[in-house]
């Protein structure tokens, strides 16, 4: 019984310590899964921001920037658009989200997560869209792409809608996993 208890304790400790990594693994999975019933106009929320915001708030801008880079690399490897990249947007968001912690000590309200994630999603969407425009600018038909701005707007709405639920839960989990566990 003692051994059983110890193994359970160690497993719990392992899961608590690795909560960051476990939740990180789910980002590309949900990005690929693309559940249509959660979408709006066929567009999904920008999933990586839900993880990036609590991570950056806790770990600061430099860590946020680095993880933004890693996330961008992983998500770019999953998408087929070789000419365009999500890295600039995610790096920028990681850095900005990290700065939020430096400027305000109090815990952010749930609905502020929604606004911050909406802004981040808008930033990432615009940076991606600008790359597409830049790439097609030589074709003289790049103005045809303008109506697809609705993708950005739908994504901003959905990200802002889900962020208060997901980000506050993740932030609570991350804070919980950082606390000292008695030996």
């Amino acid at each position, binding site marked *: 019984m003692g051994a059983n208890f110890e193994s359970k304790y160690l497993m719990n400790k392992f899961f608590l310590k690795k909560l960051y990594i476990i939740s990180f693994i789910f980002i590309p999975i949900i990005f*690929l*899964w*693309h559940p*249509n019933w959660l*979408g709006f*106009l*066929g*567009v*999904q929320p920008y999933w990586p921001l839900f993880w990036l915001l609590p991570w950056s708030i806790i770990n600061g801008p430099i860590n946020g920037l680095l993880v933004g880079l890693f996330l961008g690399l992983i998500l770019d490897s999953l*998408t*087929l*658009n*070789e*000419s*365009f990249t999500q890295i600039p947007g995610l790096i920028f968001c990681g850095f900005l989200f990290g700065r939020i912690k430096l400027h305000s000590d109090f815990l952010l309200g749930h609905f502020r997560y929604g606004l911050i994630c909406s802004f981040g999603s808008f930033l990432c969407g615009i940076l*991606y*869209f600008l790359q*597409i425009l830049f790439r*097609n600018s030589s*074709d003289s*038909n790049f103005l*045809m*792409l303008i*109506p*697809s701005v*609705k*993708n950005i707007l*739908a*994504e901003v709405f959905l990200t802002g809608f889900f962020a208060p639920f997901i980000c506050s839960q993740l932030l609570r989990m991350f804070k919980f996993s950082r606390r000292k566990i008695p030996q």
Partner: protein
Amino acid sequence: MLGIRRIFASRWWHKNKNWRFFAIFLFLVFVRISKGAFYKDFYYFISKPFWPGQFQKEIILESSDQEYLIKLNLLKKDNIRLRQILSLQESSNDEHISAAVISRKTGSWWRQIILNKGSNDGVEIGNIVIGPGGLLGRVKNTSLFTSSVTLITSPESKLGVWVDRIQINGLLVGLGDDYPSLILYSKDADIKIGDIVSSSPASTLLPPNIPIGIVQSVDETLKSKKTAKISLLAKPHVIDWVQILKVNI
């Protein structure tokens, strides 16, 4: 007095038998005038259970399906033979790989599907993916067990297409929404709503004559060219099974 009463009782209209004859006569006159409508309606009801029913309908539909299939095969063979004579590009019909869609991103900027067949099953980069309705996209990337397909709605997709009614080639450009844009580099092209767009015989990426979509709206505001929005025949957001075609290019 008695004599008068007897005469009165023997009038013809006092006999039931006569009235019956009269009724039958009237009925026969009605039948004659109505041209047997009563008989026909009566026959309609009694013969109803014996009409050629659903079963016969199925037999006829099956026969007509077989007829169409045979005709289609004959036309295909003719087409291949003529293409060989003219040395045009052809697709090998034998190499179809059926695959299931295991992931799809059909909204936002990333328009791709991932299939459950990869290089292990013989899928190669550049293979064509078709679904019920027509063309879906091209295989862009393969792993051992999966292959990723760039949909024709993706902003990275550019394909040569053919508008059969006006016999003209155009460029189909994905815009990141559900309706790719067809660009015709001729202001005089008489493109109309409802025209069918298929893969171009001149394309080096696709086999010819794969249906793609229907012209939904035409924009004539540009000076040197015409553009049109295309409604795709194959709907990538609902298709679960696709076929991968190997292309001999």
